[in-house]
């Protein structure tokens, strides 16, 4: 997993290496400072031989000032490189994820829900970015500091330095226990948090239901239950964590006391020859540095384990391979709009029951086909196989006499225009949205397509006509208007096959029939497949397919089906019952 993620570092390798390098050098400087300090105190202040001492102090002082300034510059450089490396890494990671998702097939998109893809691209990337910055800066800093400080301490006095060796494992093991125990509880807390958020969210969305059933108290009780869980778990985790600071202090204080006692003894016994006062002070400084770096290390450990979940989620996307790929030597032209289904079966999940089976169908180029069926009868599934949004599980689908799997995907999809059931307009002007169909469409072509889709009228009435801004998700046009714009967008592709998946459900019947008429007159050579709930939308089709439970129940003209097909008759009657006599 790490290898795959690391691939996204790319051009930021230099910064990623420089940053820990500078950090290490900075740490080296910081470790040298107490050593020099010891000399300054022992040879300068403590020696107290008048002007000679002052000279010592001046020299060591100057060296120390230079050292700290160098250390400051190194630290700043490390910070700068870490920022560049992490921001750049995040950029590349986001880029890679986005590109991977763009190549996803419908199956891939279905597997991850939209919301989860969005979270992975946003929150998870940010988490990994922070973790990465931690790694290149602090994750190096602490161990380096630990090792350097220990080394320096040993050069001063190996016996006293052994005290650290005793303290480090105590702190290390203590921290390990605290963190692992607290972490598992925290993970549970986060899950409970999700639950809590879920309750709030459901109440916000369903407040009308809550209020109309007078369930305010019931909901409050539910909330308080979850809230209590958080209280309990959080308290438990924090109680464990509360040992953290005292443990640290215990180690620090023990070191100080032991170093003071034994250090003083060594100095006194040796008369200041084996060790001097300044060195004692340096040792105390090192003891703090050693313990602090252990503390930091434990924090990093926590941070990294938290972001590990994010990294895993990102990796899932990076690993995901699109199951629909271009063939080796693709066919680059679609001859005509004929379609044929041969023994086609399909299931969304491998191994599960087929939701579409035994489909055999021949559609001639230029034919108009209506498709009718209840929800869940796999109408949409059937048509989505044509532009190869999904691959068939059994049998084959041919367009223009050639298996769809042999076409270049872009060529195929450019020839097969599909207006999806759940359609989307994007933020931008009307014109920009329509140009999705054809980037180079002229204004005339756009208007023509809109006239066919019966959208020209209302677009012209809008404030800025074709330059009117569409809000994200198309919230500032009505459902019917949105559908007509989507149809116009598809028409601009000048497709050989046009598929409307329940795309006129919010359009009134009169406009609907105008659209059908325009299709018949203006694009007679285009094969048209129209899925609809309303019989009136498909009545005039050359043939109508009745779908039921993933199978073709009947095929025929309106009149034929009315005579022979019960389902069709039932649907027809449910929609027209009583109205005939009124008309």
């Amino acid at each position, binding site marked *: 997993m790490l290898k795959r993620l690391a691939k996204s570092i790319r051009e930021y390798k230099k910064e990623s290496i420089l940053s820990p390098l500078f950090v290490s050098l900075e740490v080296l400087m910081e470790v040298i400072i107490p050593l020099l300090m010891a000399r300054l105190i022992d040879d300068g202040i403590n020696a107290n031989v008048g002007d000679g001492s002052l000279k010592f102090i001046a020299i060591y002082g100057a060296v120390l000032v230079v050292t700290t300034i160098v250390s400051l510059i190194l630290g700043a450089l490390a910070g700068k490189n870490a920022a560049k490396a992490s921001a750049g890494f995040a950029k590349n990671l986001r880029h890679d994820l986005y590109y991977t998702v763009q190549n996803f097939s419908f199956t891939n998109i279905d597997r991850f829900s939209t919301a989860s893809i969005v979270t992975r691209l946003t929150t998870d990337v940010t988490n990994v970015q922070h973790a990465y910055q931690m790694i290149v800066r602090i994750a190096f800093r602490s161990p380096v500091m630990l090792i350097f400080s220990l080394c320096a301490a040993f050069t001063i006095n190996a016996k006293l330095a052994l005290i650290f060796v005793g303290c480090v494992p105590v702190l290390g093991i203590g921290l390990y226990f605290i963190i692992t125990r607290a972490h598992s509880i925290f993970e549970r807390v*986060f899950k409970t948090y999700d639950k809590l958020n879920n309750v709030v969210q459901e109440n916000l969305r369903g407040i009308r239901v809550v209020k109309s059933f007078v369930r305010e108290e019931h909901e409050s009780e539910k909330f308080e239950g979850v809230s209590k869980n958080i209280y309990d778990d959080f308290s438990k985790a924090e109680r464990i964590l509360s040992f953290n600071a005292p443990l640290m202090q215990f180690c620090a204080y023990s070191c100080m006391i032991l170093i003071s006692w034994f250090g003083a003894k060594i100095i006194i016994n040796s008369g200041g020859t084996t060790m001097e006062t300044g060195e004692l002070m340096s040792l105390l400084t090192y003891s703090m540095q050693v313990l602090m770096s252990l503390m930091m290390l434990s924090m990093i450990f926590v941070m990294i384990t938290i972001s590990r979940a994010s990294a895993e989620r990102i990796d899932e996307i990076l690993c995901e391979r699109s199951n629909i790929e271009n063939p080796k030597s693709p066919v680059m032209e679609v001859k005509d709009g004929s379609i044929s289904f041969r023994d086609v079966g399909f299931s969304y999940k491998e191994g599960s029951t087929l939701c579409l089976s035994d489909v055999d169908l021949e559609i001639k180029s230029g034919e108009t086909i209506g498709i009718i069926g209840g929800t869940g009868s796999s109408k949409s599934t059937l048509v989505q196989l044509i532009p190869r949004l999904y691959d068939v599980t059994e049998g084959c689908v041919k367009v223009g006499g050639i298996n769809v799997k042999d076409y270049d995907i872009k060529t195929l999809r450019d020839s097969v225009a599909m207006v999806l059931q759940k359609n989307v307009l994007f933020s931008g002007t009307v014109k920009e949205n329509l140009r999705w169909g054809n980037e180079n469409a002229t204004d005339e072509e756009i208007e023509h397509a809109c006239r066919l889709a019966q959208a020209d009228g209302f677009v012209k009435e809008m404030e800025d006509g074709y330059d009117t801004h569409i809000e994200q998700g198309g919230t500032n046009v009505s459902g019917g208007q949105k559908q007509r714009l989507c149809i116009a967008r598809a028409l601009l592709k000048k497709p050989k096959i046009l598929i409307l998946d329940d795309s006129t459900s919010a359009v009134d019947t009169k406009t609907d029939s105008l659209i059908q008429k325009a299709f018949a007159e203006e694009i007679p050579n285009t094969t048209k497949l129209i899925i609809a709930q309303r019989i009136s939308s498909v009545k005039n089709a050359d043939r109508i397919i009745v779908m039921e439970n993933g199978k073709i129940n009947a095929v025929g003209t309106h009149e034929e089906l009315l005579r022979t097909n019960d389902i069709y008759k039932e649907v027809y009657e449910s929609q027209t019952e009583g109205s005939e006599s009124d008309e």
Partner: protein
Amino acid sequence: MSRMPGRGGKPVGMGPGMPKSKNMGKTIKRLMGYILEYKTRLIFVLVCLLASSLAGVAGSMFLATLIDDYITPMIGSAVPDFAGLLKAVLTMAGIYVIGLVANWLSNLLVIKMEQGILKNVRDGMFSHMQTLPIKYFDTHAHGDIMSCYTNDTDTLRQLISQSIPQIFSSLVTIVTVFAAMLYTSWILTIFVLVSIFLMSFVTRTIGGKSAKYFVSQQENLGDVNGYIEEMIHGQKVVKVFCHEDKSKEQFDALNEKLCSSATNANIYANIFMPIMANLGHLQYVLIAVLGGFLAIKFDMLTLGAIASFLQLSKSFSMPINQVSQQISSIVVALAGAERIFELMDEKSETDEGYVTLVNAEYVDGELRETSKHTGLWAWKHPHGSGEITYTELKGDVYLNEVDFGYVEDKLVLHDVSIHAAPGKKIAFVGATGAGKTTITNLINRFYDIADGKVRYDGININKIKKNDLRRSLGIVLQDTHLFTGTVRENIRYGRLDATDEEVESAAKLASAHDFIMRLPNGYDTMIDASSGSLSQGQCQLLAIARAAVADPPVMILDEATSSIDTRTEAIVQRGMDALMKGRTVFVIAHRLSTIRNSDNIIVLEMGRIIERGSHEELIDQKGKYYQLYTGAFELE
């Protein structure tokens, strides 16, 4: 969604663009109210913090004693007496132990306080939210309300558990260390003060820059995330139009912009710590040099004093840094607390109603209140005279010349009068925004009318207690809103004491029983809001069953069957007809075929009733309804 506390980039120090609290004094006072509920605990915590800080300072001072009183004088002596030194070291160890225990206790004691306050705030917020009028939910973005529960309570947690204790102990440390430093050497103290003053300039410059870039990073991040969200939601459309390359191109441009502002923001945040730390080292070095100079040239200081002072100067600048860092989190937390309090201060739904709904029975032809569940309900109406009258609940709804507007000065309903006799079916037809749903919102008093009267069984609905009024009304909406839980729990939501049999018969009534039985665990199948295991149509059937189990005399069906295909609808319609039987029903439907059999169809346009009558009457009128019905007009 921020559920991980305390992560993510924060700008260092204060600067422009930080959320400022509008009314800080008041917010603090109110927050104190919550904290003071744990008064004794708070005092203990503060005492412990005091002890622990003092122990730390004593440690720094100890070094002077160690060097000056023991090491230096004893170095020359031939037979050193270690008893005194041992005593001093042991005393110090004792002080440390006290400090350690005090620190641990303060950590431990603060937990219950912190978590208790948070729970109180959370629970208070939620139960208050439940009392708010629908208007509040309609006019506030759900994301904003959500963030009160997530981000804002989280910053509050940090405030109580970290910022406040840390600031308190920092202040104690600063004061005592300052005293100790003055005691040790006033000249060096002045030097420290000057250098800290200079360092604060650096802090402010970097902090300001960092905040500035941080703001632009947030903006760019918002752009990128917004783009991702829009494109991923439309991903299937992108694929159908082979628009991948274009979308990649636009994404890259935004991503590049984010990268550059994120780099800048992080550079300033990253260099802050090393610069501060090294300036600290520099100060440390200069103190040693200056101290050494003073000691040798003027003999003003002992070696021990310098050693102690060096330690003290470290203990001095650290808490000052901490306080300045904490101040920014406090400002953020207070802004969050203010938003929480704002929510809690929102006015609850007012309810002056005093007429209540009670179980009733007829005794000797007279309606009496009873504690038994009789299936018969009555309005209990206490009068000013002390007399109590009972009116049988029948479901007679009468709107008289009602005017209404969601915002003042902008009426959406004009002069609407409707009478729904018990058991009648009233349908509303009209374009979006014509005021259909608005009328139903007035009947269950989600909103209150501006002018006119609404009577329920002859009683002005303003006199009826809201909860009792709503209990007598069933409602099925287009957006079904099922809750996380089992199918059975969701149906039972209509009436919490319904038996399993009642739940099942309600499901049968709504023709939901069959598909429920086909679910993996039948009635015990979990419904998860996100899993989308049920189709929209199935959700609607459950919502209908939920209303059926409540068994109210009046039903409101707002586009209840719009997500069901016409053939299934025909099946559901049977259930619906069964459900509607004997009840007063208000129906709003897009598909005119579903309302054809209504007793009274009301056609609305721009908040006015333009036609009314039965289906046949309206068709004969050849007016708007006729046009709609024959498909000459679009209902949008």
